[in-house]
């Protein structure tokens, strides 16, 4: 299986704290993406980082990518109760751009306590 893994599987923090989630994957990639899923809803795209990028920011989100270690991290700063959700990383399987196959990690369930 090419599915990546995320850790921790679950994370509980207080509002205002930072949350860090890690993702490891197995194949070469063109890009890595992070998605969020609220309970009972579809996934929503958060941020995309290309294989030649090392860090990317979007609002309170900061993503890093280390292709030598095949790993990425998502940092959410100053968390809010509304950030409570499952977070997934996804890689494109590194098919050299010939196709598009998003492979998702196992997800991190984040609970932000008010």
């Amino acid at each position, binding site marked *: 299986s090419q599915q990546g893994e995320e850790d921790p599987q679950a994370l509980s923090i207080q509002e205002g704290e930072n949350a860090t989630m890690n993702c490891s994957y197995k194949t070469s990639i063109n890009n890595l993406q992070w998605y969020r*899923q609220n309970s009972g*809803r579809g*996934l929503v*795209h958060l941020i995309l980082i290309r294989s030649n990028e090392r860090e990317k920011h979007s609002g309170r989100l900061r993503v890093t990518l280390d292709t030598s270690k095949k790993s990425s991290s998502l940092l959410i700063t100053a968390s809010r109760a509304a950030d409570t959700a*499952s977070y997934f990383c996804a890689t494109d399987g590194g098919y050299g*751009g010939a*196709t*598009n*196959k998003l492979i998702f990690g196992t997800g991190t369930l984040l609970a932000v306590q008010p």
Partner: protein
Amino acid sequence: DTAVSQTPKYLVTQMGNDKSIKCEQNLGHDTMYWYKQDSKKFLKIMFSYNNKELIINETVPNRFSPKSPDKAHLNLHINSLELGDSAVYFCASSPRQGKAFFGQGTRLTVV
């Protein structure tokens, strides 16, 4: 306007029945997918279509048959439903190597 819409949202059916889930995207994307999310939240790709052509078929039983009448639609037909097919099925679309847009999911319960 809903970017990726799938119907129905809920589907409860008996073992052995045949059912279909429909998906439509109005984003003009070339690639569409079906994913299965199990009770542990694992998201597994089932199929990927690019411009109506099947690109990826991931070890899915042949009871599952996708159909893409045009690049804006990708339907999923399931024959002889089994208890283990109970899951949430997500349709998604994306441009090449870009971010994916997901539908709201179809919660399938086989009884």
